[in-house]
């Protein structure tokens, strides 16, 4: 893994990246597709925010880029299928990730309907991420990619270290809400299969988390998350 802290010699990297095609622009970052050391890769760049004090801006980009890389590496070590971190340049707010070619699970479900094995695998992956003491923060069907090499979970931009029942349950809940808002006809069946996959990995530990996810649905939080699922649909998601 490459890690740099100076900005001067890195200028050529920035200019090289800007020549690659932009495939997605989110609130947090720009995603470009290009080549690095001969590999086809994703360049995820956290852009400068002009409304922030420069010192705050640089600090946040640095720690967020590092945290994203750190959570990805931990998830990978735990056996979760997530993109490999190829390189990280914290001072540029740049993360270079393995390119996972494929279609989002959201699109896949829309086109081909319910695929039990894929949904179960989605549950297994999230459980592995949780086992690595990571909360994903945004595990919607848009952030799972169906590739030739199987299912992958992407975008750890909002991920953080943690293993409390509540945060894990919120992750489950976010997946359910994504199902309900975009694939409502198959949502409840799909979420049951998802829970099977999740429990397969976490065993009895999963019971409490699943129970909490049900409570979240029923309590005030339900309303809150329900509102939020609306947003997942309206815009980008990255």
């Amino acid at each position, binding site marked *: 893994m490459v890690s740099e802290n100076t900005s001067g010699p890195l200028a050529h990297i920035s200019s090289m990246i800007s020549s690659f095609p932009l495939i997605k622009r*989110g*609130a*947090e970052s720009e995603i470009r597709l290009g080549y690095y050391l001969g590999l086809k890769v994703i360049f995820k760049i956290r852009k400068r*925010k*002009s*409304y*922030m*004090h420069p*010192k*705050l801006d640089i*600090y*946040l980009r640095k720690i967020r880029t590092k945290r994203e890389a750190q959570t990805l590496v931990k998830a990978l070590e735990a056996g979760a299928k997530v993109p490999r971190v190829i390189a990280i340049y914290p001072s540029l707010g740049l993360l270079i990730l393995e390119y996972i070619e494929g279609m989002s699970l959201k699109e896949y479900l829309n086109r081909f309907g319910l695929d039990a094995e894929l949904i179960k695998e989605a549950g297994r992956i999230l459980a592995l991420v949780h086992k690595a003491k990571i909360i994903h*923060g*945004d595990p919607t069907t848009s952030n799972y990619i169906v590739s030739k090499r199987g299912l992958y979970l992407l975008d750890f931009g*909002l991920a953080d270290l943690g293993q409390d029942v509540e945060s894990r349950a919120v992750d489950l809940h976010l997946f359910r809400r994504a199902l309900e808002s975009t694939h409502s006809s198959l949502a409840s069946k799909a979420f049951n299969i998802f829970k099977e996959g999740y429990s397969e990995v976490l065993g009895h530990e999963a019971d409490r988390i699943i129970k909490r996810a049900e409570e979240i649905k029923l309590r005030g939080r339900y*309303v*809150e998350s329900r*509102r*939020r699922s*609306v*947003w*997942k649909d*309206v*815009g*980008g*998601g990255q």
Partner: protein
Amino acid sequence: MDKVVLGIESTAHTFGVGIVSSNPFEILADVRKTYKPKEGGILPREVASFFSSVAGNALAEALQQSGLKIGDIDAIAVALGPGMGPALRVGATVARTLSARYRKPLIPVNHAVAHIEIARALTGLKDPLVLYVSGGNTTVTTFVEGRYRVFGETQDIALGNLLDTFAREVGIAPPYIIEGMHAVDLCAENGEFLEEKIPYRVKGQDVSFSGILTAAIRLVKKGFKLSDVCFTLREVAFSAVIEVAERGLAHTEKKSFTLAGGVAASDILREKASLMADEHNVLFKPVPKKFAGDNGVMIALTGLLALSEGITIDVEKSFVKQRWRLDEVDIPWYPKIPQDL
């Protein structure tokens, strides 16, 4: 004039009476009586007794400003929440009395909705993303399927509360506002940014300010320069709310953005909001400063919109709701603004 509505605001520190008309939409009266504590913060009981003592005069002044008689008013709108119970009950009592005595329909208005509606009416932005920041609220919201949905909010204290509490704790307030500027803004002049001293908390779509407050007070106690702490606290807190708004814009793909609520009067916040909007090619117009803080006009104009949809409430059922959430209110008039009525 088509309809004339008198609105009463009494959720927090200001007892406001506003009178507006539709067709043409005009602000006919704007009277505000604001409770200013000599020391410490706002005590609900004291505010309530202050409100009781000024309510009669405020009403008389508003009618005089408008040149109307009570008989010319078509309906009475009142902010029933969210806010402080004792304060809310004064406004509600006055409104119920007017409604019952003069047989005018009573219109229930949610204070948060009113802040959004006055921003929409006065900026002309019909479908914006809204950052609503005040002493009691910090919310990023926009209209989706019938209601203003909360995209993100504070997990603990509100932005205005953070600024006020800090100012009070370190002895630079009250008064909290001096010639239109907040004590923290005045103190932050010539301040410099303290790196990594105050925690920045944006969690997904939410912000958290309590950690900022604790850290900032501790820095002052440790002997850091007050102007540097004020500057850094404001920088961190404002950046956090603007970042949540930015995430909201990216998700919702709204093409316009407005600031509402008392803290929307801050020039620094307006500047940051404008810079962010520019980066995303979004049209930015904040609520005019004069109508950023609590006022009766916003209650009246929201009442006008509600009345156009036949929304009224029986006096016997017009309870105040201290915790009336923004997203519990149906907004059937959307995207209309008072100018459209």
